[in-house]
């Protein structure tokens, strides 16, 4: 049996839940585990991968691919040389120029329909033809066209959520009224947790609570680490601080996804 790769969309109800941080570090973790990964920035309203990954200029952007003016090969930037292990990392960036953001927010339904077709085509062009193990879509929060296109194209939706009350309510609604309608496999990552989950009982108690609230599998609980906040998006923990507890949790999450254990 041929095992094909998987498309993962990282989404959330609210902004600031840590989607980009999780996307980048999850991609880096898979690479650390020897996988061939492609990380795509589908947050066209607030692109951030170019900053996080310190890429000053790209010849082509994902905007161009979705506009149908270039193929995906032109967009992808090979960052494998930056990392010290056997995996491979490619990224596709959203154009952070204000004019590009404005243009993307003014697209009509027909354009969005074509964009969905081009995202769906990535399964063939990248997973099947180029042999990528994972495509990771970093998305905009909430009900944005680009995010829903990403969700529809994905095999797994990872919802990054916090204990903020409006985030909890909104995430519950999205589970019922968005991911369920598209029959998507959806897992939760609870991020920025302030409760003590260092003990086994504390962790189990939290797991039960989360499963009761959301009724979907829990992929991981990530405590609020001061070092991560202090890193200000400059450190990719999975690569640069592999012994850090944050990196260790991501190792577990990547293993769960890899083994379909959620």
């Amino acid at each position, binding site marked *: 049996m041929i095992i094909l790769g998987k498309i993962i969309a990282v989404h959330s109800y609210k902004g600031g839940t840590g989607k980009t941080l999780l996307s980048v570090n999850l991609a880096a973790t898979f690479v650390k585990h020897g996988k061939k990964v492609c990380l795509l920035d589908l947050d066209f309203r607030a692109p951030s991968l170019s900053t996080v990954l310190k890429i000053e200029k790209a010849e082509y952007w994902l905007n161009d691919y979705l506009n149908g003016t270039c193929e995906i090969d032109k967009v992808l930037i090979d960052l494998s040389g930056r990392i010290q292990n056997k995996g491979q990392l490619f990224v596709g960036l959203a154009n952070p120029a204000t004019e590009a953001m404005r243009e993307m927010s003014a697209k009509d339904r027909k354009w*969005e329909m074509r964009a969905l077709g081009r995202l769906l085509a990535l399964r063939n062009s990248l997973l099947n033809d180029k042999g990528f193990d994972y495509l990771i879509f970093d998305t905009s929060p909430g009900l944005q066209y680009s995010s829903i296109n990403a969700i529809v194209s994905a095999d797994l939706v990872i919802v990054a959520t916090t204990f903020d009350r409006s985030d909890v309510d909104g995430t519950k609604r999205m589970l019922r009224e968005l991911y369920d309608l*598209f029959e998507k496999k959806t897992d939760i990552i609870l991020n920025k947790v302030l409760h003590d989950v260092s003990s086994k009982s504390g962790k189990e108690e939290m797991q039960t609570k989360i499963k009761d609230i959301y009724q979907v599998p829990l992929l991981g609980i990530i405590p609020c680490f001061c070092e991560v906040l202090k890193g200000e998006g400059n450190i990719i923990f999975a690569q640069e601080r592999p012994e850090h507890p944050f990196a260790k949790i991501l190792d577990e999450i990547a293993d769960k996804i890899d083994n379909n254990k959620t």
Partner: protein
Amino acid sequence: MVSKQEVLGKKPLHILEKIRENLEKLNEKMEVMIELQKHGRKDIQLLPETPLDVMTLLSMPDHLRKTAMAVCRLGRATAEETAQQTRRARAVESAYLNQLVIMGHLKKERKGRKAYFYVDRESQG
């Protein structure tokens, strides 16, 4: 050399093929009518092409969304192929696919005896 009997023998076969093709078309139309009645949507008229974008998918009834999503994934599919994805009966999928064609979301193209359904992403606008 082809004998007179062989030439004549092909004619009834050709007629039978035509009858079968027409019966299949009739069957599809009946399936659509049955489905439309089942869901109380007798008012549906042939609509102009309507983009099958994600917001349209979201607002669709569940039974049609499942079919539309399968065609989106497959790109171009017969009722049989769609049924394999959705794990519903071929006849049911045929009715839903034709309903999506009537609603202007899908295009249908016949190739021989097979009918293919697809999202026309190129010509719409």
